[in-house]
C-alpha cells in the first residue's frame, strides 16, 4: 500500500465532507431557523401577522426537502470521486488527480461537461418512456430518503414532519420502484442490449428483494416497530446494544460488565441473572441471536448490493457484455440523472444498514466507558468554545450534530466497504446470480427468520 495515496484519499474525503456539511447544514439553518426567527420578530408588531407566521411554518416544513435537495448532488459528486480514487488505490494506479486541486473538482467538472452535451433521442425510440425513465429512477431516491432524515438528525424538531410510524415499510416500497424505470429505459431505447439489460434488472430485483425484506423484517420483529427513529434510539448506548449484535440480546452483558470490571462478582451475577432469567438457555439463545443478526446483516448488504446493481451484481449495465446495458443510449443530463440516482441509492442503502444494524446515530463506545471520561467538562468546554454558533445563532445543536456525525461516519464506512467489494469481486453470470438469490439467500433468510423467532422466546422474557 502506498501511504502517500492513502493520505491523499483521506485528505480528499475530509475536504469533501466539509463541502457537504457546510452547505447542507447552512441551508437547513437558514430556512429552518434563521428565516422563521426573523419572521417571528417581524410578526410581533405587524398587521399581516397570520401571513408571516404561515410563511415561517412553511419554511420549517420545507427544510427536510431542501436538505435532501442540497445534499444529493454534492454527495453524489463526492461519492463518485471517492470511488474512483479508492479503486485506483486498490488497483495500484493513479486516480483522477488533475482537475482542481489534486483532482478534487473532477466530478464537478464532469457534471458541467454533461450539461453541455447534446441530448440525443435515438430514432425508433419511444420518446415518452425514454424521457420519463430517468425521472422515475431518480424520484424514489428523493422521497425514499425522507424517513431516514429523522433518524439521521436524531429526530430534530425540524425533521419530525418526515418521521412516519411505518418508516421501514415506506422505504422498502420506495426502494422497489427504480426497477420499473430500468425496464422502461431498456425497452424504450430501441437497442437490443439495453432491452436485455432492463430485463436483467427486473429479474435481479425480484430475486433479491425477498432476502432483503426478510432481513429487515426480522430486525423490525426484534425492535417491535417499523419506525426508523425508534429503531435507532433503541440501539443507543454503545456497540453491545447495536442490532448487528443480537438486537438487544447483549444488553444484560452491557449492564453487567462494569460490575465485573470493578471486581464486584456478586453484582455481576445478579445483573446477569436478572437479564438472562433462564440461565444457560438464555445465554445460548443470546449467542444464537448474535450469530443470526450477523448473518442477517450480511444478507442485507449482499441483496442491497444486488438491488442497486453494484458490482458483483451489476448485470443490467455490464460494460463488457451489454456495452452499457440500460443506459447505453442515454447522453447528457439524462445520463447524469441515472448516474446521480445510482450513487444516491448506494448512500440510502448504506444509511438503512446504519439505522437498522449499526446503531443509527449512537456512539459506538459503551456507556460505562463514557462514564469514566469527564464528559460533562468536555461538553461544557465545547459550549464555551462554540458559544456563538450553539447558543446565539442556534446553528449547531450538539445532540443533532453528534447524531449526524456518527451516521455519516458509519454510512461512509459501508460505502468504502462497497467500493472494496467492487475492487475485489468479478461479475456474476446471470444464471449464477439467480441461483445464488433463490437457492442460497432466500432459504438462508427464511431459516434465519425462524431461528430468530424461536431464539427470541428464550431471551424476550427479560424485557419485562
Amino acid at each position, binding site marked *: 500500500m502506498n501511504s502517500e495515496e492513502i493520505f491523499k484519499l483521506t485528505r480528499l474525503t475530509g475536504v469533501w465532507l466539509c463541502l457537504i456539511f457546510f452547505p447542507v447544514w447552512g441551508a437547513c439553518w437558514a430556512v429552518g431557523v434563521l428565516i422563521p426567527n426573523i419572521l417571528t420578530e417581524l410578526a410581533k408588531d405587524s398587521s399581516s401577522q397570520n401571513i408571516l407566521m404561515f410563511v415561517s411554518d412553511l419554511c420549517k416544513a420545507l427544510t427536510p426537502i431542501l436538505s435532501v435537495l442540497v445534499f444529493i448532488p454534492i454527495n453524489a459528486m463526492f461519492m463518485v470521486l471517492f470511488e474512483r480514487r479508492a479503486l485506483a488505490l486498490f488497483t495500484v494506479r493513479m486516480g483522477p488527480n488533475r482537475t482542481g486541486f489534486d483532482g478534487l473538482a473532477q466530478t464537478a467538472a464532469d457534471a458541467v461537461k454533461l450539461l*453541455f452535451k447534446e441530448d440525443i*433521442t435515438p430514432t425508433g425510440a419511444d420518446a415518452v418512456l425514454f424521457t420519463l425513465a430517468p425521472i422515475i429512477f431518480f424520484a424514489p431516491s428523493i422521497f425514499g430518503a425522507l424517513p431516514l432524515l429523522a433518524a439521521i438528525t436524531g429526530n430534530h424538531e425540524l425533521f419530525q414532519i418526515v418521521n412516519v410510524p411505518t418508516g421501514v415499510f415506506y422505504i422498502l416500497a420506495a426502494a422497489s420502484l427504480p426497477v420499473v424505470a430500468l425496464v422502461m429505459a431498456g425497452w424504450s431505447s430501441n437497442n437490443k442490449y439495453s432491452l436485455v439489460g432492463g430485463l436483467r434488472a427486473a429479474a435481479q430485483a425480484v430475486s433479491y428483494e425477498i432476502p432483503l425484506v426478510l432481513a429487515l423484517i426480522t430486525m423490525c420483529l426484534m425492535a417491535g416497530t417499523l419506525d426508523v427513529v425508534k429503531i435507532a434510539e433503541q440501539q443507543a448506548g454503545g456497540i453491545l446494544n447495536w442490532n448487528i449484535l443480537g438486537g438487544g440480546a447483549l444488553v444484560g452483558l452491557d449492564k453487567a460488565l462494569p460490575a465485573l470490571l470493578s471486581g464486584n462478582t456478586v453484582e455481576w451475577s445478579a445483573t446477569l441473572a436478572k437479564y438472562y432469567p433462564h440461565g444457560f438457555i438464555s445465554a445460548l439463545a443470546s449467542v444464537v441471536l448474535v450469530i443470526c443478526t450477523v448473518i442477517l446483516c450480511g444478507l442485507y448488504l449482499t441483496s442491497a448490493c444486488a438491488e442497486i446493481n453494484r458490482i458483483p451484481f451489476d448485470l443490467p449495465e455490464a460494460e463488457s457484455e451489454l456495452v452499457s446495458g440500460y443506459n447505453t443510449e442515454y447522453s447528457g443530463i439524462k445520463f447524469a440523472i441515472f448516474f446521480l440516482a445510482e450513487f444516491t441509492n448506494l448512500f440510502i442503502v448504506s444509511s438503512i444498514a446504519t439505522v437498522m444494524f449499526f446503531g443509527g446515530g449512537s456512539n459506538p463506545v459503551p456507556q460505562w466507558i463514557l462514564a469514566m471520561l469527564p464528559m460533562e467538562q468536555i461538553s461544557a468546554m465545547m459550549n464555551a468554545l462554540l458559544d456563538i454558533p450553539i447558543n446565539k445563532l442556534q446553528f449547531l445543536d450538539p445532540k443533532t450534530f453528534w447524531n449526524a456525525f456518527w451516521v455519516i461516519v458509519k454510512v461512509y464506512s459501508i460505502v468504502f466497504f462497497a467500493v472494496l467489494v467492487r475492487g475485489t469481486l468479478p461479475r456474476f453470470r446471470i444464471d449464477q446470480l439467480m441461483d445464488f438469490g433463490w437457492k442460497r439467500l432466500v432459504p438462508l433468510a*427464511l431459516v434465519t427468520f*425462524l431461528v430468530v423467532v424461536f431464539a427470541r422466546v428464550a431471551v424476550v422474557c427479560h424485557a419485562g
Partner: protein
Amino acid sequence: MYELQLSQIFIFVLVGFALPALGMILLAWVLQLVLGYHTPNPIKNQPYECGMKPIQEAILQFDIRYYLYALLFILFDIEIIFIIPWALSTDRLPAILGKGAWWLGPAEIGVFMFILVFGLAYAWKKGALEWDP
C-alpha cells in the same frame, strides 16, 4: 390521531415526490437546453447498440425467461406483507392471553413458514428455479 398521520404521509409524499424531483430535473433540463447544442442528424440519431449497424428494430416481442421467478416473487412478497403485522404484534400476545401463551406466536409463524418453505422446496424440485430449464 390516525387521520393526522395519514395526512402527514400524504403531504410529504406529495411534496417530497412531486416538487423536488421534478423541480430539480426541470432545472437540469432547462440548463441543458440553454447550454447544450442541438443539431440532430439521421446518422447521429441511430441507436449506438454495440457499435455496429443495428439489424432490426429492438422494440419487439421477447421471451421473459424469469416468468416463474416473477410468480414466486409475488407469492413471497405477499407472504411478507402478512408477516409484518405478526412481527409487530407477537410480543403483545402473552400480555393479553397470559404468560402461558408464550408459544402461540412462534407456533403460528412456524406453521405459516412451514407452508412457505414447503412451497419453495416444491418449486425448486419442479425446476422452477432453473434459469436454463
